[in-house]
């Protein structure tokens, strides 16, 4: 094993291969975290809609979840990047093809975000539905409106209950971000592949990439554990604990 390869001048760009790795890490983090912001926001809204009584709200949310959850991520990546510009209104399509800044990056963020949203939606829905119906009755009985019941009663407990499965979705988005390389985002996996092609140090390069992914996921896991401890409700035994 010879890790000195990372300090050699890179094939292009003026830096070392270490700079390529660092740049890859940066894009991996950016794609994943921005994707997660979309996934969490959109997924929360969809998850809430799936628990409402009104069919006009519930049905579209259900359709969304079924479609986005069941089409392979790789296919969705191609659709966002290659197909979408062709099927949106002409002016928007032209803008996406010629003027959109960093189109690979933004399409990857949107793709990953909207795909993961379908999975977050399912977690949010199950969290809300695991709360006994009496809680909703209690909120409504004191005069809260339905949205206020979600805001003050259902979501605060629902989110707490789903922290563990939500953590695993958050971890998955970092791993799934490597799919962005297929549309040309130079994230960590793409950089690793590129460096190994130039240097033939495949083993060293992918060892480093693996270690970096593990470090990222470990950090996320530790952070989410800390969050879970911070918001733990004293004396609460879980929805089945009464």
């Amino acid at each position, binding site marked *: 094993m010879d890790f000195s390869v990372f300090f050699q001048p890179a094939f292009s760009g003026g830096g070392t291969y270490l700079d390529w790795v660092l740049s890859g890490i940066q894009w991996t983090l950016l794609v994943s975290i921005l994707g997660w912001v979309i996934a969490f926001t959109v997924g929360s809204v969809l998850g809430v809609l799936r628990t409402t009584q009104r069919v006009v709200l519930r049905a579209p949310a259900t359709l969304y979840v079924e479609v986005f959850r069941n089409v392979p991520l790789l296919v969705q990546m191609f659709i966002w990047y290659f197909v979408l510009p062709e099927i949106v209104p002409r002016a928007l399509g032209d803008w996406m093809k010629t003027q959109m800044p960093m189109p690979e990056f933004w399409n990857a963020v949107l793709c990953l975000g909207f795909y993961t949203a379908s999975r977050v939606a399912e977690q949010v829905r199950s969290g809300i539905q695991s709360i*006994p119906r009496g809680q909703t009755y209690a909120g*409504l009985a*004191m*005069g809260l409106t339905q949205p206020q019941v979600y805001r*003050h009663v259902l979501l605060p407990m629902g989110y707490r209950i789903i922290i563990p499965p939500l953590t695993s979705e958050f971890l998955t988005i970092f791993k799934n971000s490597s799919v962005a390389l297929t549309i040309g985002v130079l994230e960590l996996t793409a950089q690793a592949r590129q460096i190994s092609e130039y240097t033939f140090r495949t083993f060293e390069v992918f060892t480093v990439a693996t270690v970096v992914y593990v470090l990222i996921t470990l950090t996320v896991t530790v952070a989410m554990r800390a969050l879970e401890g911070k918001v733990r409700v004293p*004396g609460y035994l879980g929805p089945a604990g009464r």
Partner: protein
Amino acid sequence: MIAIKNVSKWYGEFKVLAGCTTQIEKGEVVVVCGPSGSGKSTLIKCVNGLEPFQEGEILVDGISVGGRKTDLPKLRSRVGMVFQHFELFPHMKVLENLTLAQVKVLGRTPEAAIEKGLRLLERVDLSAHKDKFPGNLSGGQQQRVAIARALCMDPIAMLFDEPTSALDPEMINEVLDVMVELAQEGMTMMVVTHEMGFARKVAHRVIFMDSGRIVEDAPKEEFFGTPRSERAQLFLSKILQH
């Protein structure tokens, strides 16, 4: 104060309530009893619109609960409700449970809400527990907090759905004591319970339900003297044995 006129309700094909009619005057305490599944909870939830009904009419303080123009949250905020499983919000401290609706529904300032909350906690003898979470209180304490929470809204009437059924025997009296006191102060109360001692002590009338019907609706003396229906006699003899 509460007028229930010919109310019928179906769950699909199943008729839960069959032409229920009764009236509760201001300051009156009415106990509702009957076998499990007879529709007591359903009826009491219809009174504040937590359950919709298909036929008949319910007026609370002259306002039609099922009316299309009725501001249900506003109406509900004027009627307190206490549940079998307490339904305190587990992620909020005791005092926060008491102030939430005062602030969000009645628009009181947080300071005014806290002052009111503390006064009612004092009344149920739980001031020392104001900063605890519900999960760290006993069942009896939780139910007293739930009663205080409802009273914070200055309700014109109180609904109780089996408030002592989920309690260990040694905690039943601490809750009943609070309810007796309320009754003696002239609160309008509709109480689903099998605590016949409570009924004898403070009820004005007793309603007996069976299979979604109001079978007996009689002044207390008459009910405990000679209930007219065989079904009620049988039921009474069963629950008075314990």
